[in-house]
């Protein structure tokens, strides 16, 4: 009797977390879809088969790198160079993952491993701003569901783009290029309203990234440096928050 009651309470808690994760992932889904469709269309025009297009989204799950790879295939670049360029562009996920798992101290390693594999710019930044879920029970279900929502839209969109070709009116799909930037802004502003010092962290990261690219640094390394240096200002700026809630 007692265990039964406990059981049903637990499944409700788990389901609740899954539902909340999906809701949190919804803006990413909206942002990914047009980009994934565009990727699928471009990749099929470059001569990749639908299997290859979808498989790349399933295994790599990194938008910018996939676009880069398609562009490099189109210009006949060698595989090794494409792989190195992918590494450089995606190395920022190392810094993001470190920040992400540092918050998930209560979550088991076997749950952390699949979660980190699903980290992108978008799943990381959204997850990072949903902090309290890490400490709730079934916290890993929340993040898993958030990531899977994004993943499904990325993989599904890539496949559809490859199969259907150019289905979206060009002007609409071009306008939707702003979607992920708008999402990043929509994530940053509420944090700034809660703590004005965050403006300094974000702007410092922007300036460092911008200057590094101005002097000709590769975009991948510039984002890594901007993130690390901008974040370092938090050592002093976030002092009074201590452990944060």
């Amino acid at each position: 009797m007692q265990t039964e009651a406990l059981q049903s309470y637990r499944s409700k808690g788990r389901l609740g977390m899954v539902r909340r994760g999906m809701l949190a992932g919804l803006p990413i889904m909206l942002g990914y879809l047009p980009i994934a469709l565009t990727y699928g269309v471009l990749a099929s025009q470059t001569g990749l088969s639908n299997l290859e297009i979808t498989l790349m989204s399933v295994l790599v799950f990194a938008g910018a790198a996939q676009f880069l790879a398609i562009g490099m295939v189109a210009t006949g670049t060698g595989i090794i160079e494409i792989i190195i360029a992918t590494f450089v562009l995606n190395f920022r996920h190392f810094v993001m993952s470190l920040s992400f798992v540092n918050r998930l101290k209560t979550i088991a390693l076997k749950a952390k491993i699949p979660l980190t594999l699903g980290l992108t710019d978008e799943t990381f930044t959204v997850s990072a701003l949903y902090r309290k879920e890490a400490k709730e029970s079934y916290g890993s279900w929340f993040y898993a569901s958030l990531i899977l929502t994004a993943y499904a839209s990325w993989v599904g969109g890539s496949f559809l783009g490859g199969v259907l070709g150019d289905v979206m009116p060009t002007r609409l799909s071009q306008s939707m290029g702003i979607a992920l930037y708008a999402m990043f802004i929509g994530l940053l502003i509420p944090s700034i309203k809660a703590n004005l010092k965050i403006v300094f962290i974000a702007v410092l990261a922007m300036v460092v990234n911008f200057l590094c690219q101005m002097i000709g640094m590769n975009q991948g390394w510039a984002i890594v440096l901007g993130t690390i240096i901008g974040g370092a200002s938090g050592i002093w700026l976030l002092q009074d928050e201590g452990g944060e809630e």
Partner: protein
Amino acid sequence: MIIWMIIGMAVVTAIPRLLPAFIVDVVSFPDWVDRWLNAIPYAALGALIFPGILSVKPDTPQIGIIAGMVGILLSWLNVHIIGVVIGSIATVFLLTL
């Protein structure tokens, strides 16, 4: 050929994502590193927004700026993030009519 490229890309993408899970399992960071890592999401958001937003319409960077301002305004007025995204898309759409 392409399949090897995909596998190679998957490996070099997965390793940097995966490594930190093992690092934090064995290393415990001092407070100041915790604060640094806590600030990473805000710094990442900054670096991801700018200057990338200028290339939404590469030939007319001001469109990205204006759409970004609309996003900031909507977000400042506590509009839900989906509304912020749709408002910015609509701005770019209208500006490129």
